[in-house]
């Protein structure tokens, strides 16, 4: 998990001025986006981008490979769908509820798994995610195979109706942008620096006096919470919550998105999410070939550009700046 050239580029204080530019571009893309691309598709991509960015806090910046993040996405999505449909909560409260559920679940699973490392950590998180999957399959309120359907989008704060796709898009885009800035801020805070120290050399971080496990747990909970936020919003965008979001394939997909975009980069996971979601969407007519294409791209990525799309771009950009 060494991503040295990347961490070098984002942490250098000298690049403070130019680091604003990508955010301006991002904001511009979010504003222009819906006039070029179908808004529902964009919302889906943004949800997955949020999911991948949250996952990246753990994999990219703390060096922990969780293979059970679908548990948080799915539980949050079921919780917010249930809150909005059965309890009739307004969307912001339903989303908050879903996010809190993911946070609570993240705290419990995090406390139980954080001591393990590497492949053991991946396996234990996967085991917990499978437990959550079977819970969702059996529990009454999730509706089993059928999922929770026709979830109302409702009115934001009871005032602004989110029924039209455009209104919903604006809401999702704003939440995404804020989350993105928040992750950026956290990564560059002293807390984020400690996380990266843990990733690079855990023994050394311990010897410097940091309570490494507490930092790792905090990162895990943070990642689970933001994953929950993505899941809760997704349930309202599609007006349904289904088993898809809790399956282990979903946990795998987010790993793929993050690796493809660039582990440990700020924008990488979002780019990866867009690429994967676009493939699922626009290549849907190819049928089973979608999986083959995805697999081929993954192999290509691992063989030729391991830093991922954004990671590789950063690398060559820095090389050019220096040379």
């Amino acid at each position, binding site marked *: 998990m060494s991503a040295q050239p990347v961490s070098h580029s984002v942490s250098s204080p000298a690049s403070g001025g130019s680091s604003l530019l990508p955010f301006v571009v991002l904001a511009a893309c979010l504003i222009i986006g819906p006039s070029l691309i179908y808004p529902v598709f964009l919302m889906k991509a943004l949800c997955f981008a949020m999911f991948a960015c949250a996952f990246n806090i753990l994999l990219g910046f703390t060096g922990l490979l969780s293979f059970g993040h679908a548990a948080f996405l799915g539980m949050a999505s079921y919780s917010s769908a249930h809150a909005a449909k059965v309890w009739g909560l307004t969307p912001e409260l339903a989303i908050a509820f879903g996010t809190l559920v993911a946070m609570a679940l993240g705290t419990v699973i995090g406390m139980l798994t954080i001591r393990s490392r590497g492949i053991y950590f991946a396996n234990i998180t996967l085991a917990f995610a499978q437990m959550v999957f079977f819970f969702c399959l059996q529990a009454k309120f999730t509706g089993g195979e059928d999922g929770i359907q*026709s979830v109302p989008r409702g009115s934001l704060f009871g005032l602004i109706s989110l029924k039209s796709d455009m209104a919903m898009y604006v809401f999702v885009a704003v939440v995404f942008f804020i989350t993105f800035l928040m992750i950026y801020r956290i990564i560059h805070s002293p807390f984020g620096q400690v996380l990266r120290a843990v990733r690079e050399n855990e023994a050394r971080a311990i010897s410097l006096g940091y309570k490494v496990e507490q930092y790792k747990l905090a990162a895990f909970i943070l990642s689970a919470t933001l994953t929950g936020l993505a899941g809760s919003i997704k349930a309202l965008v*599609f007006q349904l919550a289904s088993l898809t979001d809790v399956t282990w394939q979903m946990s795998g997909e987010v790993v793929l998105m993050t690796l493809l975009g660039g582990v440990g980069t700020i924008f990488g996971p979002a780019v990866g999410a867009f690429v994967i979601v676009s493939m699922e969407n626009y290549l*849907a007519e190819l049928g089973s070939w979608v999986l083959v294409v995805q697999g081929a791209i993954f192999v290509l990525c691992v063989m030729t550009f391991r830093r991922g799309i954004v990671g590789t771009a950063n690398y060559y950009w820095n090389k050019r700046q220096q040379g």
Partner: protein
Amino acid sequence: MTLIKKLAVATAFMTAMAAPAFAQYSGPPIKLGVLSDMSGLYADLSGPGSVIAAKLAIEDFGAAAKGMKVDVIGGDHQNKADVGASIARQWYDQDGVDVILDVPNSAVALAVSDITKEKNKIFLNSGAATSDLTGPKCTPNTIHWAYDTWMLANGTGKALVKQGGDSWFFLTADYAFGYALERDTMEVVKKEGGKVVGNVRVPLNNQDFSSFLLQAQASKAKVIGLANAGGDTTNSIKGAAEFGITQAGQKLAGLLVDVNDVHGLGLQVAQGLTFTDAWYWDLNDDTRKFAARFSALNGGKYPGKIHAGVYSSVIHYLKAVEAVKSKADGAAVEKKMKELPTDDTVFGKGEVRQDGRKTHPVYLVEVKKPSESKKPWDYYKILTTIPANEAFRPLKEGNCPLVN
């Protein structure tokens, strides 16, 4: 290669014929979207075959000769409700799709049904099983063709008890779908005077059914009901064959089995299995002709009930559009579809009920022994034909808000 060539020729022919004639419907081109599982576990039962079925229907309706231009597109929902929902929205909002067809997988179908109502288009479901689509969740924009869970449970339960299978043991998949199938079948069995001697809940996606099958065998029940689907059904049938359960005299009743499942299992393993099917290719000359044309385009694989349902629903939809002379208002076209009796070469005569249920006779079948099978895909012995008015859930019992 031949398939693509044939399709290309067919399309070219249809486009050439699409010159406007004196037609009753002269509106904009009609677009049908087959939203299916193109690569996963349902791909053989529906999938690319459903696209072929829709194209055959357009051809047989004579759309080109009538000056109607009808296009078909296919999409893969990958058994994910969110993927299915976003394709459906995009098709309706951007791609000008008027009708969504097929949609195996109940979660996806329920989502598509909601979206279709919101956009006032039409959803002709023949792939998904859930009877909720014409029950509490019925809409004025959805019609359920071919089969549903109530029909499967009722047909198999009732007919088998009548034939003397009056004691049952259930192998039930341990989740909502399994419980629903078990509950529905149990009710029928008890109502018909049979009894349930036991049941066992089996975890989903189980590989080894031996201990559960031994329990079933020890129960001495005359019928072992398989309240499960897909891989669980085929695995339990394989297990039962290894234990020689059907040879020993117990009957194995599948509740959700398709002709393609039987093909996959082979007669050696599947023989003696009894279940209800909504359609079979070897019913009469018309269905045989359809099967021959279909299998020529589908790499030799024969059509099942879902393909037949897609074919039949497309024909009926086009008739309704012709009668209404407009495709714009989905609810209006569907109203016409409910008024007109259905009649096509594949499903014969039938009707679409107020709750959106399309009714027709269904068949209780037993899988033949290898020695009885005379030709390719000669798999079923038809035990009983259940008439249309008994085959489906009575209109009043579905709790559909459209019925009063």
